[in-house]
């Protein structure tokens, strides 16, 4: 196991800057997920750590050693790819052992490692099959096995589950989690699927535009998004946003929303003292809204127009001050539709962002 430290790393392809100078320190044994939309630079960062592409600036340290100019094989890393990248002409056993044999490990050692990895990943019966004879899930396990046999310090995953169907995806996600607990190795996992991010990660780095927007525990990311991008990206259905202006006159702080409605914000912890009249965006998650009044909470005017039942619970869709919004309700709850009503929430659970910069207030 080894720590991974990225120092002022930047990557440019010609004129295009894919990764801006960014720093990221990953503790030994930590499971970091790089989450973001496609084109945000998460794969580029992973490939930079793996040494598969040259960085334009900055350094990569693994296990306290500066590996910026090292070949991937000398960095103690293993990588699992989206397309599994198994060698089609070789059996599973050969796929696992090829790297070791090329490195010149003694036969017994090679066999021992392959057996161990096969046991951990429960792929013993598949050892003598060809990749083309395996299912997607089995192939991905073999791909993981390939890194496992090399006792790598750091596991790198490049969207490994995106080619699998939903059921298999959950199954393998759990298995990767189990693997992490069992091996305790440092893991860096790239995905655009936020559920994977929230369930697997010790910490999540939400990225966009080649920058890390926020690096925090899943709970922190979910509860206290550092800016509007992170808030909107994480959580499904996404957070509801209501545009308005802050008003500190008339007792207590509130958000003046179109058509003269005032949404009281007392109880919201401000990072910087609120300025009157500053345009701001209120962010409330669907499950933080309730039909019933909340003692000491705030209220929002809404007009609901339909209810989606999702089995375990339902989602009521409507408009708050013209912006689309959703609210999570119990399946049997009655939701008044077609006429203005009020819904309630605790300001200290909500988030408030500067309308222009999107920064959390």
């Amino acid at each position: 196991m080894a720590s991974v430290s990225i120092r002022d790393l930047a990557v440019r392809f010609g004129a295009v800057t894919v990764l801006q100078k960014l720093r990221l320190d990953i503790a030994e044994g930590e499971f970091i997920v790089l989450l973001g939309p496609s084109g945000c630079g998460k794969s580029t960062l992973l490939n930079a750590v793996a040494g598969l592409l040259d960085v334009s600036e900055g350094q990569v340290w693994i296990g306290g050693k500066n590996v910026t100019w090292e070949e991937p094989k000398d960095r103690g890393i293993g990588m699992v790819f989206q397309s599994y990248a198994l060698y089609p002409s070789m059996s599973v056993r050969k796929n696992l052992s090829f790297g070791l044999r090329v490195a010149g490990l003694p036969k017994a050692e090679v066999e021992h490692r392959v057996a161990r990895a096969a046991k951990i990943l429960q792929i013993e019966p598949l050892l003598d099959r060809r990749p083309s004879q395996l299912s997607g899930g089995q192939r991905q396990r073999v791909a993981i096995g390939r890194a496992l046999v090399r006792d790598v310090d750091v596991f790198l995953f490049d969207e490994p589950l995106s080619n699998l169907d939903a059921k298999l995806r959950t199954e393998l996600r759990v298995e990767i989690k189990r693997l992490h607990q069992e091996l305790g190795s440092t893991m860096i996992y790239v995905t655009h699927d936020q559920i994977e991010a929230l369930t697997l990660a010790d910490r999540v780095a939400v990225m966009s535009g080649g920058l890390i927007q926020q690096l925090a525990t899943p709970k922190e990311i979910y509860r206290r998004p550092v800016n509007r991008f992170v808030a909107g990206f994480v959580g499904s259905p996404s957070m509801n946003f209501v545009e308005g202006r802050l008003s500190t006159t008339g007792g207590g702080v509130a958000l003046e929303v179109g058509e003269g409605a005032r949404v009281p914000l007392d109880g919201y912890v401000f990072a910087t003292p609120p300025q009157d009249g500053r345009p701001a965006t209120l962010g409330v998650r669907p499950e933080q809204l309730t039909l019933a009044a909340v003692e000491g909470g705030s209220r929002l005017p809404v007009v609901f127009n339909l209810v989606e039942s999702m089995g375990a619970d339902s989602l009521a869709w409507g408009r708050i001050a013209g912006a689309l919004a959703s609210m999570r309700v119990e399946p049997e709850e009655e939701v008044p539709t077609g006429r203005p009503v009020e819904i309630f929430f605790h300001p200290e659970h909500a988030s408030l962002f500067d309308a222009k910069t999107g920064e959390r207030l």
Partner: protein
Amino acid sequence: MTALPATAPSAVVPSGPRPKRVAASRIVLYGILLVAALYYLLPLYVMVTTSLKGLPEIRLGNIFAPPLEVTFEPWVKAWTSACTGLTCKGLSPGFWNSVKITIPSTVLSVLIAAVNGYALVNWRFRGSEFFFTALIFGSFIPYQVMVYPLVLVTASLGIFGTLQAVILIHTIFGMPILTLLFRNYFASLPPELFKAARVDGAGFWRIFFQIMLPMSLPILAVAIILQVTGIWNDFLFGVIFAGTQNYPMTVQLNNIVNSTQGVREYNVNMAATILTGLVPLAVYFVSGRLFVRGIAAGAVKG
């Protein structure tokens, strides 16, 4: 966070892109490619330079020396007045014959091969695989095995020694490889495409002409290049089946170059050789990249 080691491992702290050390392997790589390029260009150089030299300069100098005083006279002579036996009209009659042979043969053989490929992939009928395998076997049978009987077949059809005979022969012998390429290409297309057209009620020919053919541009380019170069460069079928008044350029070239004019006019011979190769070269240069992309699609699936 573990403490960072105090002393940097080497004087230079590795940072940023790995320094581009001009690896020996890079030099060797370019060296080999350069030598290979020279090997390939040498004949072209010899042909072009000699075709621009006067005869005295050829007899004295060596064939690798660049021409001292350049003259295009050999080219003019090769095209208009070089003699094949008694008739001295140069290569030009042969050129038009080659055109009259190549264009219909290419159109016919590519069209038929495309239909074969399309039928083999999407309309499998009993025996279609057998015929395809037999076709591929056929491409291995040496022409010489079939030349004589084909003379009799074309004679019985009454077309021996005419354009139709040589067109028919080129269509026959072009079919195996082209059908293989088209079959591989159509097999690599997503099957849903064909199913959707069937669901819309399109028939065999409508799907072919309106959907499949327009989509097969890359492989069409490959087929056309293979056929044009193959037919234009053919000598055996031209000399036997085309009939003397339809001799393609290659037969005329062979007559000019091999006719023993006493003193051999190497410069005219080389000019004639380049002229004969111009059309296939031009076709290849124009669609080189299409050729490569098409080959990838056609051959790779193979």
